[in-house]
Structure formats: structure tokens, C-alpha cells
């Protein structure tokens, strides 16, 4: 069975009848790169947050299995410790908590594992070495590690730090929600290089994007087009170029007709 299996997933905004996901089916495994493309308001970000466990959405139908385990039974922190990661489109600032301290706490929470886990904190010299390597990979200046997390960061810096956290937590499946937005061309190359280095037999990624731009750097195995809460088409890398030239409107027509 694939590592991530999404079956007929429906979700509402919590406490309302507003349905944003209207039956999503998708399967992927570690080592694979999938991309979800779609126009604004099609449900791309909703899907990423429903998978991560955002309290603002409730699943009304369907199931999600992660390595055979029912993901929807788990709280967001448990999903993270199980090996799911979400790079936020709009990461939150945590003033007074440094990047290094925060990531160390997160790494230690992962090392501890589940609720019955044994406390086994990472040794500080080992942690320092790992984070410095990851920062070099993403061309982040060392001094940034002692700044407050996302506090006063530019949009591009925030995105790099999301990928830094991904590198340190080594998830099995990473969802990258609009990671390319707000990045200039150099930053996009650096972040994409980082993603390419990290994806491998132990990690797969689901790239959520509005534009085909990032897919020039990170080559997807499969592309899915999301419209109005449903995946309307799936295909290979060529689908991105088709979208780029003809736009979402043509597909919309196709779907309706």
C-alpha cells in the first residue's frame, strides 16, 4: 500500500456547512514527488491543512491512511511525530523563541516519539552540527539561528526556515504549501536545490502551487489539478506546461463539458 492514501476526503470549515473539499482521492509514497496545482480558492491550502490537522476544518467523509494508520484520529503533533510535515504558506512568528531553540525542541519531541516515548534529547554539539549543515545547504546565514522564529522575517526568509525545519525533522511525507510564493529567482533555486537534496528513498513531497515555476526546478512524478474541491485531472510533468500555456480556464471548460 502507498505510504499516504487519501480516499473520498470531504471537509468543511469547522462548525459550518461550507464544504471546501468535495471528495479527494490521492495516493503517494516516499521517494515520489507529486504536485497539486489549481486556481485560487480551489481548496489547495485547505487540503494541506486538513492533512496536517488544522482545528479550523472538520472532515465529514472519507479517510486518510498514513503508513496504514488512520491519520485523522491523530492530533497535529502526533501527525508530525508520525512523519508528516507541512511547510506553511504563512508561517507564524514566535517572538522571544530563537530558531535554534525551537527546532531543538521540535527535534526532541520527535525523538521522544509517541506519548509513551522515552525522553532522549539530542546532544547539543550534535544538534549544532546538524543545523549548521542544513543552514549551509539553504544558504542561511549562521547568525539567523539566534533570531526569534519568523519574527520580522521577510516572506522569503520564512519559506527558507520552513524548509530548514523540514530538513531537521526529516519527515516521510512533506507537504509544501505555496513554498515558491514570495521567493525571488535566486531564493527559489536555493530552496529547490534543498528540496531535491532531501527528497529520496526516505522522503516524498506533495508540492502545492499556483504556478508551474517551481516545477522547473523540482521535477514532479505526477501532477494533479484541483478545482472546486476535487482533483479533476492527473498526469505527468507535461501537464504543468499544458496549464502554463492554456491556463486553468480550458480545463474548467473541459471538466464541465
Amino acid at each position, binding site marked *: 500500500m502507498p505510504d499516504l492514501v487519501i480516499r473520498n476526503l470531504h471537509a468543511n470549515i469547522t462548525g459550518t456547512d461550507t464544504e471546501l473539499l468535495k471528495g479527494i482521492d490521492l495516493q503517494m509514497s516516499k521517494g515520489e514527488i507529486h504536485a497539486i496545482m489549481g486556481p485560487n480558492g480551489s481548496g489547495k491550502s485547505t487540503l494541506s491543512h486538513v492533512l496536517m490537522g488544522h482545528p479550523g476544518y472538520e472532515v465529514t467523509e472519507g479517510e486518510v491512511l498514513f503508513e496504514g494508520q488512520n491519520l485523522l484520529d491523530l492530533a497535529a*503533533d502526533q501527525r508530525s511525530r508520525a512523519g508528516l510535515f507541512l511547510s506553511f504558506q504563512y508561517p507564524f512568528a514566535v517572538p522571544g523563541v530563537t530558531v535554534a531553540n525551537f527546532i531543538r525542541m521540535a527535534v526532541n519531541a520527535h525523538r521522544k516519539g509517541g506519548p509513551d516515548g522515552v525522553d532522549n534529547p539530542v546532544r547539543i554539539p550534535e544538534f549544532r552540527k546538524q543545523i549548521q549543515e542544513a543552514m549551509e545547504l539553504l544558504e542561511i546565514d549562521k547568525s539567523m539561528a539566534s533570531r526569534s522564529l519568523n519574527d520580522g522575517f521577510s516572506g522569503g526568509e520564512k519559506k527558507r526556515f520552513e524548509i530548514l525545519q523540514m530538513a531537521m525533522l526529516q519527515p516521510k511525507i512533506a507537504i509544501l504549501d505555496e513554498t515558491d510564493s514570495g521567493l525571488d529567482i535566486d531564493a527559489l533555486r536555493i530552496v529547490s536545490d534543498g528540496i531535491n537534496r532531501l527528497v529520496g528513498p526516505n522522503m516524498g513531497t506533495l508540492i502545492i502551487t499556483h504556478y508551474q515555476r517551481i516545477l522547473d526546478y523540482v521535477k514532479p512524478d505526477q501532477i494533479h489539478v484541483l478545482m472546486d474541491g476535487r482533483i479533476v485531472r492527473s498526469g505527468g510533468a507535461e501537464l504543468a506546461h499544458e496549464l502554463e500555456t492554456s491556463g486553468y480556464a480550458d480545463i474548467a471548460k473541459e471538466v464541465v463539458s
Partner: protein
Amino acid sequence: MAPETADVDLGEYKWGFHDEENPVIKIERGLNEDVIRQISAHKGEPKWMLDFRLDAYEIFLSKPMPNWGADLSGIDFDNIFYYLKPAESNARSWDDVPETIKNTFERLGIPEAERKFLAGVGAQYESEVIYHSLKKELEDQGILFLDTGQALLEHEDLFREHFASIIPSADNKFSALNSAVWSGGSFIYVPPGVRIEQPLQAYFRINAENMGQFERTLIIVDEGAYVHYVEGCTAPTYSSDSLHSAVVEILVKKGGRCRYTTIQNWSNNVYNLVTKRAVAEEDATMEWVDGNLGSKVTMKYPAVILKGERAHGEILSIAFAGEGQHQDAGGKVTHVAPNTTSVITSKSISKDGGRSSYRGLLRVNKDAEGSKSKVVCDALIIDPESRTDTYPYINIMADQVDIGHEATVSKLGEEQIYYLMSRGLSEAEASALIVAGFVEPITKELPLEYAVELNRLIQLQMEGSVG
């Protein structure tokens, strides 16, 4: 260094235990002239002090209860014990402290802290200081660190010159009360040019039910000298209330610096009504670091009067109001001389229906031209039941001044917690981390040991509320 959390009871006040009472002297409940005469007689004070006390008592009676701050209607002055002497003498060695009292201070970690990082320790239990120490080399440099009552007897001239010179009895109802019945507290004198690198600490413990603790602290930092004084306080949890009403006066002479750090962690049945004021002379620096976690009601606004040119005042205040608590705290700065500077940073956290108020006064007198001041107050509200208010009073009478004021109120956001949880932190860890980050501007100013303790206390408070 990570805070130790292994043996912590979730959300429970750890210092709520009490010892059996075994007082040497316990004056009957309530307050009258005779009680004051008894206190003064037990202490063998000079007549001028008895007169001072009786005069203050008249002032106390004549002043109405303050009605502009927290609700004080629960205080029953007739039900309070005003003087309780727990042991015969003020020991210089922990071995000489009565067993039960020593055990209490050991549970609070005081002797250990003394060995590790303190230059001197005072430990007050009920009305009297029962233990006092100062490192020999500091004594040799002419530093005085002793219980205030003893200072009156042993250094009467120095004492009389400064006592009540910064906070007169008539300042407010509770300073009058303290002046009438004061007992214990710390007296510190640091000679010119002497810098004490390790902190001096005093620890205040209330043990008996309905106890009133009225310590009086007087610190004189002579020219170019430096001292960091730390006070900590706890009390048992009882169903009826106790009262803590201290007066702290500090004089920092030319070019000197004093830092006064408080970690107040009273149990939730203590009214904590304290008057603290410092005068900073030319080029002197006064810093108040004021942490208020416990108590039922706290009203406390550490003040600095910038009396000499280029004097600097700094007030860092943090308040944590939980269930049934009202923390009415803040700071006051008066710029008297030209080119003086001040910073007030206040952070408050309210949760489980707790209420925190920032109350601040910034005053720049007519002659204080070229002065600068910055006031920042930030409030964090954990849940919708809790409340925060800001009362910033600013009164500028000078021209050519630079004044900044910022205030923010933020709510602990579900989305922010979700973001941290998506990295593997539990909900409790996530909210504790946000709160720890919020108070970081204060904790980073504390010596490591106290920063760890403060973070641990906050974590404890947060763990009680989540999950």
C-alpha cells in the same frame, strides 16, 4: 540549560504546605496602639521609633482604603496577626535555625542557592529574619547586609538618616500600616566604589494563617557602587487570607547602580500590597525587575525618581494572573533632572478568568529637559474568560523631551498553537513556549537560576490549564 520538570505536580502550587506553629511570641489578632507598643518593646527600640510607629498608626487610621485599583474589600484588619516571632535568635548558621523552619527553607532550596551563587542570604519567617549571612570578604569591604531591625539597633545614625526619607508614612494607607508595624526586611549599605558581583538574596516566608508580614527594606548604594538584590516569597495555602505589605526604599548615589529583582510567588490567599521606590542621583542607575506570579491581589508599582542629571531608571515587570487572581502592577518614573532616561517594560498574562492590569505613571518635571522615556506594555490573554486593562498615566511638563509609548494586547491563538503542534510539540508545550517567548525580554535579564525558575513556574501554570 533546560528547566527541570521531572518532579513537578501539574498546575499545583508547590509551596502550599505549612509547618506547625511554635512561636516564641504571638501578639493577639487585630491592631491597636497597645499592639504597636508591644512590638516596639519586644524589639528594644529607641523611643523615636515608637513615636514614629504611633504617628504612622494615626495616619493609617485616617486614610481611606484606596478605591482606584484592585478590590481590597476582603481584607479584615481585625482578623490579622501583626507580629509573630518564630524563634529566639537570628542565626548565622543554618545549623542554629530551628529544625522545622530549616526544613522549610531547604524545601525552598535556599541553603543550596546560598552555597552555589549568592553573596549573602536573609531568610524571614513570619515577622522576623531567622537567618542571615554575608560572605566574609564582603563584610571586610564594609558592606552591611543585615535585618532592618538589627540595623536600627547597630547603625542607628545611618539608619535614621535614610529611614522613611523616600517613602514617608503618609505616602499611602499601606505604607502607613507598614510604618506602624514593620518588622524584619533587609538593610543594605554598599560603600563607595564597591561592586558586589553575586546577588544578595532575601527570602520571605509566611507560615501562619491570617498572618500579616510587614517587612521594611532599606538599601543605600553609595557612589559608584553596585548591588543586585533578589527577593523571593511564598506562603501556605489557607482558606482565609493573609496580608503582605512591605515598604522598600532605595537610594542610589552618584554613579551607582542597583538592581532589585523580585520573584513573588505567594499562595492565592495573600493580599500583596507593596510600596517600592528608589531615588537615583546623578549618573546613577536603578533597575526594578518585578515578577508577580502568585497572590490573590497584588498592587505594586515600583517607582524611580530620577533626581540627578543623566540618571537612568528601568522597570521590567511581568504579571501572571490565574484563576481568582488580580495582578494590578506596573511602574512609576519621575524625571526630575535634565537628560534623564527611563524604560518601562511590562508584560502580563491572564488565564482562567484571571485579571491583570498595567498601571503606570510617567512624569517629566519642568526642569527635566532632554529626558527620554519609553513605555512598552504588552498583554497576553490565554482564554476568553480572562481580562486585561491598561492605565497609562503620562504627565509631561518639560519641553524637548522624547517620549514613546506602545501597548499591545494579544490572544493566545489557536492557529499559532497549531503551527507549533505541526512541528511535533504537544498543545501544552506549544502554549508554554509561546508564553515563555512572550516574557523572554524579562527572563533574559534574570540570572540563569532565576530565569529557569520563572520559566518553570510559568510552565506549571500553563500545564494546569491545557488539555
